[in-house]
């Protein structure tokens, strides 16, 4: 008995001692100067993290071509499945100034800004990436969140709309159709706050860019009711493609370029009647990135129109590189005329960007409740 008491006391003393060592921890971001990525001889090993199905694969794919041209050994890891959970995984490392061996990864615009503000990213000198600025589409040169393109370089853009299994539910064209009870349990929506909720707001005639916090919360309520009643089967990240393939759902809110991942021949991507959400993803260089010279060279490499065209050919997303459409036309590819890959102003006239709500915290909390179940 005394042994038990003694050990308990010892533990308490130990614990208090340990607690005294700590104050604020786990966050606060990296204080100090923001580094600039260093250029240099291009050699060695390069580790990149990206979303799955976001590059031309195989022996003649982008990575293979880059390796052949530069002699760099590339480790291309497709471990980004969801913007938030990838950040959660990286955050403890980034807080320490580490990147887990990664030299470059691809994240959404708003996430790039968030990480920059926390001091987790390195800056990029324009003179180190000439090919990028030669070929970057004018519309992407000066976005609100990074007006001088100091820390982000666009990778691909895309649209969030509705994937429909035309053999089972050909009449779905609007987000409002997704709430029709005859499809109960056969609908999925994306778990990303800034993609799904703006779509619902558009369907109600609200402009997400100007919406008040209350309007955000109201849209979330509507989605929540649909989830409770069993109308919505899942809130997904990448996995809605699997549900489409297995025939478990008739429609999903999903991304325009995912046709390479969908086996279901009856599935097609549709622009919602009231408009879509448009987004961009960027390459960023994190703190602690090894071999930044190779990372910079990678950025230059993928901005060559020919390489960019190869990527577009496979991923079918919207390329940030000018000249790709002409190249694809020369190759006789059908994609050159595709509205999904090269959308016209007219096609996307009702679309909105990836907006954030004016007051993030309550909206985020409400959203998390809905998607966690």
């Amino acid at each position, binding site marked *: *008995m005394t042994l038990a008491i003694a050990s308990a006391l010892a*533990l308490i003393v*130990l*614990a208090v001692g340990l*607690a005294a060592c*700590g*104050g*604020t*921890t*786990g*966050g*606060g*971001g990296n204080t100090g100067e923001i580094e600039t990525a260093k250029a240099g001889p291009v050699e060695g090993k390069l580790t990149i993290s990206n979303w799955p199905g976001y590059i031309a694969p195989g022996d003649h794919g982008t990575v293979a071509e880059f390796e052949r041209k530069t002699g760099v050994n590339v480790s291309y890891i497709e471990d980004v499945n*969801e913007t*938030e*959970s990838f*950040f*959660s*995984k990286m*955050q403890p490392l980034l807080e320490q100034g580490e990147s887990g061996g990664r030299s470059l990864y691809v994240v959404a615009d708003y996430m790039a800004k968030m990480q920059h*503000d*926390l001091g987790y990213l390195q800056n990029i000198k324009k003179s180190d990436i000439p090919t990028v600025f030669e070929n970057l589409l004018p519309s992407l040169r000066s976005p609100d969140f990074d007006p001088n393109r100091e820390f982000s370089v666009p990778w691909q853009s895309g649209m969030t709309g509705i994937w429909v299994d035309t053999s089972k539910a050909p009449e779905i064209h609007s987000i409002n159709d997704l709430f029709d009870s005859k499809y109960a*349990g056969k609908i999925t929506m994306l778990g990303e706050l800034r993609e799904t909720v703006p779509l619902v707001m558009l369907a109600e005639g609200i402009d997400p860019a100007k919406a008040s916090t209350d309007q955000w919360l109201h849209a979330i309520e509507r989605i929540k009711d649909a*989830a*409770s009643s*069993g109308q*919505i*089967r*899942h*809130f997904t990240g990448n996995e809605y493609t699997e549900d489409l393939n*297995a*025939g*478990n759902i008739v429609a999903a809110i999903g991304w325009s370029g995912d046709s390479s991942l969908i086996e279901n021949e009856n599935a097609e991507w549709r622009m919602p009647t009231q408009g879509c959400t448009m987004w961009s993803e960027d390459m960023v260089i994190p703190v602690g990135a090894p071999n930044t010279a190779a990372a910079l060279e990678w950025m230059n490499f993928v901005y060559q129109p020919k390489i960019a065209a190869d990527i577009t050919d496979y991923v079918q997303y919207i390329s940030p590189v000018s000249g790709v459409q002409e190249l694809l036309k020369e190759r006789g590819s059908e994609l050159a005329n595709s509205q999904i890959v090269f959308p016209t102003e007219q096609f996307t006239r009702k679309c909105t960007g990836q907006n954030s709500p004016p007051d993030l915290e309550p909206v*985020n909390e409400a959203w*998390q*409740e809905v*998607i*966690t*179940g």
Partner: protein
Amino acid sequence: MSLRQRLVPYWLLGPGLLWLIIFFVVPMYFMGELALRTGNLTTGFTFNWEWSNFPDSLSGHTEQIWRSFYYAGTATLLALLIGYPLAYAIAFRAGRFKQLLLFAVIAPFFTTYLVRTIAWKTILSDSSPVVSVLQTLSILPPNGRLLATSTAVIAGLTYNFLPFMILPLYANLERLDLRLIEAAKDLYSSSTQAFLKVTLPLTMPGIVAGVLLTFIPAFGDYINAQILGGTQQAMVGNVIQSLYLVQRNYPEAAALSFLMMGLILAIVVIYIRFAGTGAFMGDEEEETA
């Protein structure tokens, strides 16, 4: 005994105890400490004696907690009903095949939890033969489904934790002295009576061990709910996972984990006080400190 001889057990126990204390007990303390912090990623997490995290973490999530009780409870009951006869059969009817059957019971463990749960996901998918048969037999309505329902999650939990039920049951059943049942028969009891009055009470420690070893991990599971369930099947584990790994709300996540841990610890401590740690570990004698 010489001093050296008396110290031997402490040397033997030392590494294990140290490892468990440093990497189990201490983290529990840290989790409790994290639960008392406030803040977020941008501002950092500051220690604030923020006791409100505890009721806060419960407030939004009572539904998931009750659901976890319900799912884990049902799965445990099913596992008991399925597993007891199986354990009995292996202990007394298996003959040469005893070890083979035992191995077959553990075999699913060797295919990775995720792979076999995903296998179930496809076996139970909407367009699978299983669902078609159930629809033909009118067990399911014409456009009914199994996935993204409570049924699928409970079925998954039962399957995945069945070995945890069977092994303690078997270990206990194996020691059953069949002559006691003989004796009962000699005293004119029927088979059913013999079972209820002799076998069942004697195997109760095994049953309780199996129930605990099944219910507790099932309660905290989130994989089955995530893969086989839909928006309405989230369990406590899903909430904790989301709080830690998606929302990065570490204080609330830690508070909820701590509460869940406390709940389970209460159940285990009550049982141990009742039956002694020896019974939990599988032998019949009570050990003294």
